[in-house]
């Protein structure tokens, strides 16, 4: 029987799953992913994580609980830095420890440290470190990684073209998506960390909600990284968080190219990064443009009606802007 590796469907799963999955499968392992986030995963996560953690980290705990008894290994990489000169988030740096000390009876964890703060020199070592759990043959490990990387690149390209990775399972197979497109559709940019954006339980299917009203959705993943970097260079100050660079760059791109009719920022309560970035983005958009902006903060209380109302109002306002903005009666 092949070795089973468990990957929790949370946090950077939505960015890297195609890479990890292909890599492990090339090495003959069976990849087990936790179910899509559901009520049980959500509640268990909240129960087992420390109170003050943010919701995405709590949900991660729930996903670990969901698969820990079904697998031989848990893959929980310590993601410190994925780009030169940038960090992700302190909680990502300490994730293996948070899991280890919050959840009992865990299978062995594979937790390589990914730290490209200075350079990517040790990438090869990391790959071999992970691969040696499955084979002693380092050539095989490296060629497995090469194949996995191609898979990952193909995935990134299709997201870049407008595919929305709604759920992990179909991430790889899915080549088309539920895009709504006619000539005069309105476009809305939905900004968030990928785990807030693509976890449909967490955000109460916000993307679907908007698409079903005939509005096209853009996400930061659909903006070319090069553009994002170009714009961020113009931003005053040193941006050293990868998420911050991506989100601020996206906002600046949208302001400059006027490619969207509205911007929605989905944040979660207790997110240290959003407390800074959400604020910077909002101020910047309001100062530099007249694009309608709304910040939605999600927390442990999933009141869907509130989200629906706000999204409907936001979309109505955008549609209304076109037709009646200049025709308001002065008498009210």
């Amino acid at each position: 029987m092949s070795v089973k590796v468990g990957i929790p469907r949370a946090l950077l799963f939505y960015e890297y799953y195609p890479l990890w999955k292909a890599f492990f499968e090339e090495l003959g392992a069976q990849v087990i992913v936790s179910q899509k986030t559901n009520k049980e995963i959500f509640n268990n996560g909240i129960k087992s994580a420390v109170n003050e953690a943010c919701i995405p980290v709590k949900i991660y705990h729930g996903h670990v609980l969901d698969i820990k008894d079904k697998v031989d290994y848990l893959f929980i990489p310590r993601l410190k830095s994925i780009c030169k000169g940038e960090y992700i988030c302190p909680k990502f740096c300490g994730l293996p420890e948070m899991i280890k000390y919050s959840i009992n009876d865990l299978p062995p964890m594979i937790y390589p440290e990914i730290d490209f703060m200075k350079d990517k020199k040790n990438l090869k070592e990391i790959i071999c470190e992970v691969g040696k759990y499955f084979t002693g043959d380092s050539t095989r490990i490296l060629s497995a990684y090469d194949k996995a990387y191609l898979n990952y690149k193909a995935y990134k390209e299709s997201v870049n073209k407008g595919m929305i990775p709604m759920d992990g399972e179909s991430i790889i197979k899915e080549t088309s998506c539920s895009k709504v497109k006619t000539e005069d559709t309105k476009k809305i940019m939905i900004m968030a960390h990928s785990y807030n954006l693509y976890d449909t339980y967490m955000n109460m299917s916000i993307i679907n909600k908007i698409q079903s009203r005939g509005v096209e959705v853009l996400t930061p993943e659909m903006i070319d990284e090069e553009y994002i970097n170009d714009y961020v260079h113009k931003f005053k100050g040193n941006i050293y968080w990868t998420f911050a660079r991506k989100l601020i760059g996206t906002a600046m791109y949208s302001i400059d190219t006027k490619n969207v009719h509205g911007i929605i920022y989905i944040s979660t309560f207790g997110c240290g990064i959003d407390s800074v970035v959400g604020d910077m983005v909002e101020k910047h958009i309001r100062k530099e443009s007249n694009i309608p902006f709304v910040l939605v903060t999600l927390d442990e209380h999933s009141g869907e009606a509130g989200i629906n109302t706000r999204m409907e109002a936001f979309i109505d306002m955008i549609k209304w802007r076109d037709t009646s903005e200049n025709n308001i009666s002065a008498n009210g």
Partner: protein
Amino acid sequence: MKITFPLMGNMYIALKAVFEELGAEVIIPPKCNKRTLELGTLHSPELICIPFKITLGNYLESIEKGADTLFMWGGSDPCRIGYYNMIQEEILNTLGYDIEMICGEPFKNLKEIKSFLNKLSKVSNTSNYFKLLPAFIKGIKLIYEIDEFDDLVIKTRPREMIKGEVDKLYSKFEEEVNGAKGYKETLNIIRKKKEELKNVLIDKNKQVIRIGIVGEIYTVLEPYINLDIIKKLGNMGVEVHRSVTSSEFIKEQIDFLPFINSNKEEVHRAAEPYLNTEIGGHARHTIGNTVLYSEKDFDGVIHLLPFTCMPEIVAQSILPTIEKEKNIPVLKLILDEMTGEAGYSTRIEAFVDLLQRKKEAYTQ
């Protein structure tokens, strides 16, 4: 030019003396108070941590007093501190204040100390290293002296024979040190007060409870944020040890120099079984020092952190395991602008009570 900087415990005494040595006019923000925090909170992003809000409040109150140049620490720690100066500058500009921000980076090597000195030269209008370097060294020396003085205060307070004597001496010290100008005067006052402190009558044989304080640097060092926990504990007859102090912090930054020794390695070694990497802020120190306190027979540990503090949340999820494995009680206190003093005091009292009973049971 009138320069100001945010408050972090007694750090202001050294900063003030350094800037005065360099010939700048210094405006010290009013001691942190309710208004400081309210002002800061009003203009800050909603969910940012309390150190940000209170330091912004410090600026606003200093600007009211005439300050036009702000000094702040920067850097690129994974935590939010590195973004402080950028957002605060933006907020102040939006409010219509024409200010200049000078941002010091953490010293990681000689080059950065040099770049810090260059920034100091902006303040003093001199780029002469023979003037800048001595001022810099004097500042560090003062920080050491103040921390030594504070440690003595902490040791004396729970053992004083006449209640309130140390507190009285301390407020006198603050008053006098605020009136002092430059390095020499400041140093003299600290030394004089230290002598006075040594003359305070103490009960040498008193059995006191010992509590170690760990956590994020602002919440440990700024008495207004932590509702004066160190004084409170001292007056309850508890000897407190701060794992985070300005002098230790600076020592850790510059311990690549041959004659500086910090506890960093010891702390990291102690933390190793639980967290063997740097994740930003003081998380690794929180873990390591909690382990060290348990080994040094402290009775308990108090963990101070700002609400939503990212690195400390990681530490917080590890601490219950250390508490169990090392058999040392840990009280966690999360601080923000909503922290109510009554509930906070109750928890501290209950914790001290628990430790006292535990100790009594043990000695019997």
